[in-house]
């Protein structure tokens, strides 16, 4: 088991993954039922589950989940639609890169959450402000990572395409782009995960709906069960979207995943 880089059989792999969840749940149960942590600070697993059921049945939590997913996907898609082409242009053309790269490298370190007060001032507390937070958080990251991926394209393939008669647009569209696509898709998967953290922050301040808003409301009522359930739901949605993204990538780019 501790042989470096030795593969683990798939059955054991799954078992080990599940084992961690079981241990985690066990630890949680032990500290809550054992009275080590008072219920005021941490609800026990059963209470959290019950809180979850009542959230869906009594408080219309499904609506909050829907709104949050909509915001994440909306902000992320807008960011990707502009960031991916810009990143490709930066990666392909060194002049474009020289023009944008310094500013975007700077902008990347501006924390999206720090813009929230400013964005509320500009866009109010409506949907535009929520989308803008995710847009700011995702856009610069995607641009830079896509630029690096495209810039690292194999020079030998570019040269081969030139000897086959490819001109500028052919090189960009039919050599650089398809070669970089699987890694761009992986980057988008990664950034979508980050977008989830931005949306919750955006919803903690000045929101009337969404998972973050529910968590904030629960804090006022000291309902740790609901808060924990909300956090778990975010994790589950992240897991599902990650899985779907991976499946889509494997289907779109079979050549990339060949052994």
């Amino acid at each position, binding site marked *: 088991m501790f042989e470096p880089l030795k593969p683990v059989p798939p059955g054991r792999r799954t078992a080990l993954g599940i084992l961690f969840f079981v241990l985690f749940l066990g630890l949680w149960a032990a500290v809550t039922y054992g009275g080590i942590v008072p219920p005021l600070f941490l609800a026990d697993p059963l209470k959290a589950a019950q809180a979850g059921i009542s959230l869906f049945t009594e408080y219309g939590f499904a609506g909050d989940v829907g709104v949050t997913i909509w915001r994440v996907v909306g902000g992320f898609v807008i960011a990707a639609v502009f960031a991916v082409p810009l990143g490709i242009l930066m990666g392909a053309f060194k002049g474009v890169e020289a023009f944008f790269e310094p500013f975007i490298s700077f902008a990347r370190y501006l924390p999206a959450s720090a813009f929230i007060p400013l964005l509320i001032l500009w866009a109010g507390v409506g949907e535009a402000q929520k989308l803008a937070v995710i847009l700011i958080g995702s856009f610069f990251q995607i641009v830079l990572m896509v630029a690096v991926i495209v810039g690292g394209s194999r020079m*030998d*393939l570019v*040269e*081969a*395409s*030139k*000897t*086959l*008669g*490819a*001109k500028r647009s*052919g090189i960009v569209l*039919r*050599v650089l782009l*398809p*070669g970089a*696509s699987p890694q761009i898709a992986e980057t988008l998967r990664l950034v979508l995960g980050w977008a989830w953290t931005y949306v919750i922050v955006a919803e903690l301040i000045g929101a009337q709906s969404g998972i973050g808003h529910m968590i904030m409301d629960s804090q006022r009522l000291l309902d740790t069960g609901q808060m924990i359930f909300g956090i778990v739901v975010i994790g589950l949605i992240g897991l599902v979207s990650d899985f779907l993204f991976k499946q889509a990538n494997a289907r779109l*780019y*079979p*050549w*990339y995943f*060949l*052994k």
Partner: protein
Amino acid sequence: MSKLKIDTVSRVFPGVRGGAPTRALEPTSIAVEDNDFITILGPSGCGKSTLLRIVAGLDQPTTGNVLLDGQPVREPGPDRGMVFQSYTLFPWLTVRENICFGLREKGVAEKQQAETAARFIEQVGLKGFENHYPKQLSGGMQQRTALARALANDPKILLLDEPFGALDNQTRALMQELLLGIWEKARKTVLFVTHDIDEAIFMANRVLVMTARPGRVKCDIAIDLPHPRHYTVKTTPEFAAYKARLTEEIRVESIRAAQDEH
């Protein structure tokens, strides 16, 4: 008029960080006639690949110029097909799509692309592998696809930069026969760079020996072996005589190249 005229082409690479510039290629002139199969034989680092890259238009000469059918070469183009030593198939395209790449760039109709691809797939013996991705192929099959990809463009001249260098000996021998067979049928003009003496003699009608860096053409030897050449030609006394001569020529250069490294 020669098919390809390399006229006093030299290449000096500028020094890195104030270092001395590297003279990769001394002024070199070569005339390639139509249907020539020329192998350029030289020790590693003698500038033979640099010369080929200049002919392909992937590198610019410091002096001199290259004329193809009387037209100066300035940039890469589909009239000079190239097969590289490294595997340069597009990994996201299947064998068939790789072979069609140049035709597609040219805007050839899809039906015609498919016909051309089928013909070259047949020629290089890749029937049944049309829909495989490069990663699913052996090194020899990848280079056969690369050869078909270059040939499908119907180039005026075929440039081969140690295309079989990464293959094992047996596969390499089979690839040589395959390429020679194609040349005997299609009579393409070929410029083939190698450091393998047997390979150089077996396929060529002319072998150019290059000196160690800075490279220049040291001698130009006509290979007068009959066609079609069978692999058994490699064991004939005539072949052995060529080999003895070229071994001497190249050995001196290899020793010089090795000494220059110290």
